[in-house]
């Protein structure tokens, strides 16, 4: 026992634990450092809640050790342990009706004795906890009248009132709306970074875990299968191996951390007699149309696209026929020929309102050739061409020529109507 709080927060070493019979946790070692938010992820039944229970003196491990800031919680009184580690459970259903204030005051129990009621300090902690969890306006309301999200915040306030250096949360955001998710996670970050607490939170939402946690542990069938920074843990392999789902993992999403998107259900594979459509997109402007046409039963091809382009990523995921060139390269002769062939055999060509620069302006020439040779062409003319012309006027000139050879629609939603209207004319 070092007693040095800066030393280590919550440390589990080789913990094996269970409820009789097969152990739920096997040889789990982890470290929740002070000043950090550590996330625990894993499928249902992987042992996440049991791990929190073991760390909170609720289930003595069969082997291995637990240390909370150097102290073995099983070697001290429940009272002492409750001053070291606070837990926010998923849900608590009191047997009787308590007000929010009464609930939060119970968080001060480890500091109060039978005949001593709360003093100034207890009230201060209670008030701060209620403000941090944003429940101060609910103080006199009975718990059972509150919504799920409000109840969850009351439990957070109760745990915060414990003023413990280690805080563990079992799915703290499950019942919260998006605004309160952001608020509560900001509170947790503050508790870790500003107050130097060791925070461990179970997450089901992997994007939240990735965006808010400093470190992650992935638990599967009672064992830690991956640990480290979100970048190293949240991977396509983890999604498949641990959760059993195909998912697209972008290494740096909006938060600068990995973001996860499950793959959409693939549309039915096109048959030999499916109508063919070719989409000219780029920079994400073609994605909606691609998906729409694929779902409508078209055999969709795309191109020419640059590798790494958003439209190209989706086309790959939807398993569409695609013509690609390396990033930032101009369209070479071979790709142009491939694309020309695809368009010539298509029942319809859709030209999306993508930005056009020297690298892809040739797509417009190919489309114009196809349209002039009689291929039915639909032009999505939503964003004015002048705003997305990066060729110094060339793209605008081609676009205007296309207009007189194609049917213009004002957005991706109208493409299908355009396709069917065009058919009707024939």
């Amino acid at each position, binding site marked *: 026992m070092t007693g040095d709080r800066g030393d280590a927060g919550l440390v589990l070493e080789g913990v094996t634990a269970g409820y009789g019979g097969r152990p739920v946790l096997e040889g789990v070692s982890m470290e929740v450092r002070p000043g950090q938010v550590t996330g625990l992820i894993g499928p249902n039944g992987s042992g996440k809640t049991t791990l929190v*229970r073991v760390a909170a003196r*609720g289930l003595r491990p069969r082997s291995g050790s637990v240390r909370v800031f150097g102290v073995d919680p099983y070697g001290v009184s*429940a*009272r002492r*342990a*409750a001053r070291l580690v606070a837990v926010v459970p998923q849900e608590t259903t009191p047997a009787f009706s308590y007000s929010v204030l009464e609930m939060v005051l119970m968080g001060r*129990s480890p500091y109060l004795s039978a005949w001593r*009621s709360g003093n100034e300090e207890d009230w201060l902690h209670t008030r701060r906890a209620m403000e941090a969890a944003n429940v101060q306006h609910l103080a006199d309301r*009975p718990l059972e009248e509150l919504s799920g999200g409000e109840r969850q915040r009351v439990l957070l306030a109760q745990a915060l009132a414990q003023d413990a250096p280690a805080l563990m949360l079992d799915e703290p955001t499950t019942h919260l709306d998006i605004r309160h998710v952001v608020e509560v996670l900001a509170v947790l970050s503050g508790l870790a970074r500003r107050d130097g607490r060791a925070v461990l939170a179970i997450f089901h939402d992997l994007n939240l875990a990735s965006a808010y946690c400093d470190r992650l542990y992935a638990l599967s069938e009672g064992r830690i299968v991956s640990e480290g920074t979100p970048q190293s843990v949240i991977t396509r392999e983890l999604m498949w191996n641990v959760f059993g789902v195909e998912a697209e993992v972008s290494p740096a999403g909006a938060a600068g951390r990995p973001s996860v998107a499950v793959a959409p259900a693939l549309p039915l594979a096109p048959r030999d007699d499916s109508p063919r459509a070719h989409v000219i997109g780029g920079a994400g402007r073609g994605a909606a149309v691609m998906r729409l046409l694929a779902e409508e039963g078209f055999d969709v091809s795309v191109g020419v696209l640059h590798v790494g382009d958003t439209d190209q990523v989706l086309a790959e995921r939807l398993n569409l026929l695609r013509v690609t060139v390396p990033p930032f390269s101009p369209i070479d002769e071979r790709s142009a020929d491939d694309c020309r062939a695809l368009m010539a055999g298509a029942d319809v060509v859709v030209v999306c309102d993508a930005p056009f620069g020297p690298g892809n302006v040739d797509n417009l020439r190919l489309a114009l050739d196809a349209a002039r040779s009689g291929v039915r062409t639909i032009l999505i003319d939503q964003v004015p061409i002048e705003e997305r012309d990066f060729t110094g006027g060339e793209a605008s000139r081609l676009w205007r020529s296309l207009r007189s050879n194609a049917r213009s629609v004002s957005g991706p939603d109208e493409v299908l109507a355009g396709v069917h209207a065009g058919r009707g004319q024939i």
Partner: protein
Amino acid sequence: MLGPRRREEVIPALVVLLVGSCLVAIAAGAVWISPLTSTRLLAWKFHLMARPRHIPEATSVILFQLRLPRVLLAAVVGAALAAAGTVFQALFRNPMADPAIIGVSSGAALGAIAVILAGGGAALDGLGVSGAAFVGALATAFLVYRLARLGPTVQVATLLLAGIAVAAIVSAAISLIMTFSGQQIRSIYFWLLGGLGARGWQALAAASPFVIAGAVISLASARDLNLTALGEERAAQLGLEVERFKRVMLGAGALLTAAAVSVAGLIGFVGLMTPHILRLLIGADHRKLVPAAILGGAVFMILADLAARTLVSPEEIPVGAVTAVLGGPFFLYLLRRERTRAGARP
């Protein structure tokens, strides 16, 4: 539930009610003894003033030998049963838990009956009966607790089921003993029915120490009773040594129940209803609920006993019947009103 300010007034109001009901219960009976007379006689007893003149000796005898011990005994028994009910309800997280339901009352009765039979019914109010009742109550409480203990912890649902089963077995044992008790069956029967008549100062002296001890433990544990209402795991996370606390509180509940049963027999409804009604009025915070239940149980039992001995005077109704008749409808009324108004849990 009452508003926050009126909730604060409930305990002072109960103190006033307790004093008032004591004075009325002392006054009423075959002979009316006015509160002024009884106050003056009490002051004389406590050497505060000279023997008041013009008060017949008989009045003094009735006051000190009959009325006063009976009213005080009613208060002590009511307080004990209500405190025990509050403790068991919090401990088992179930508003239907009650000393009778989990078998502790029957256990106490079994212990007491065994001693009454062995002692030939002579020592009804003696310490022997209280002691045996306590042993019976404690043994039942822990038997139920052990039966319900399957893994490392006791699950409340199992505990309640085990309690109901043990209560049935103990009641059967009582019936069996009564069948073979010959001439004493009548006295045991009336004792079981519950009554506070002619028990005197001896019974009060036998019960009070246990009740006071049990009440002090309950009051000291009020804050932790709140925690157990959140569930055992949560209570432990908030710093409570749950297993030890459960054992202590089972002991305290058994002590309170045994003290009441040994001097007053089986009186139902007080332990179930008093905490229930008060929870509807002041909420479930045990720091207020436990003292309120102690006061409320005393008031309720004093009034129930007053009704029992005055309504069909000179005959007496068993006080247990009065508690049920008075308490049941009032309880149902409060329950319905609260549910329809707020949809709240009791």
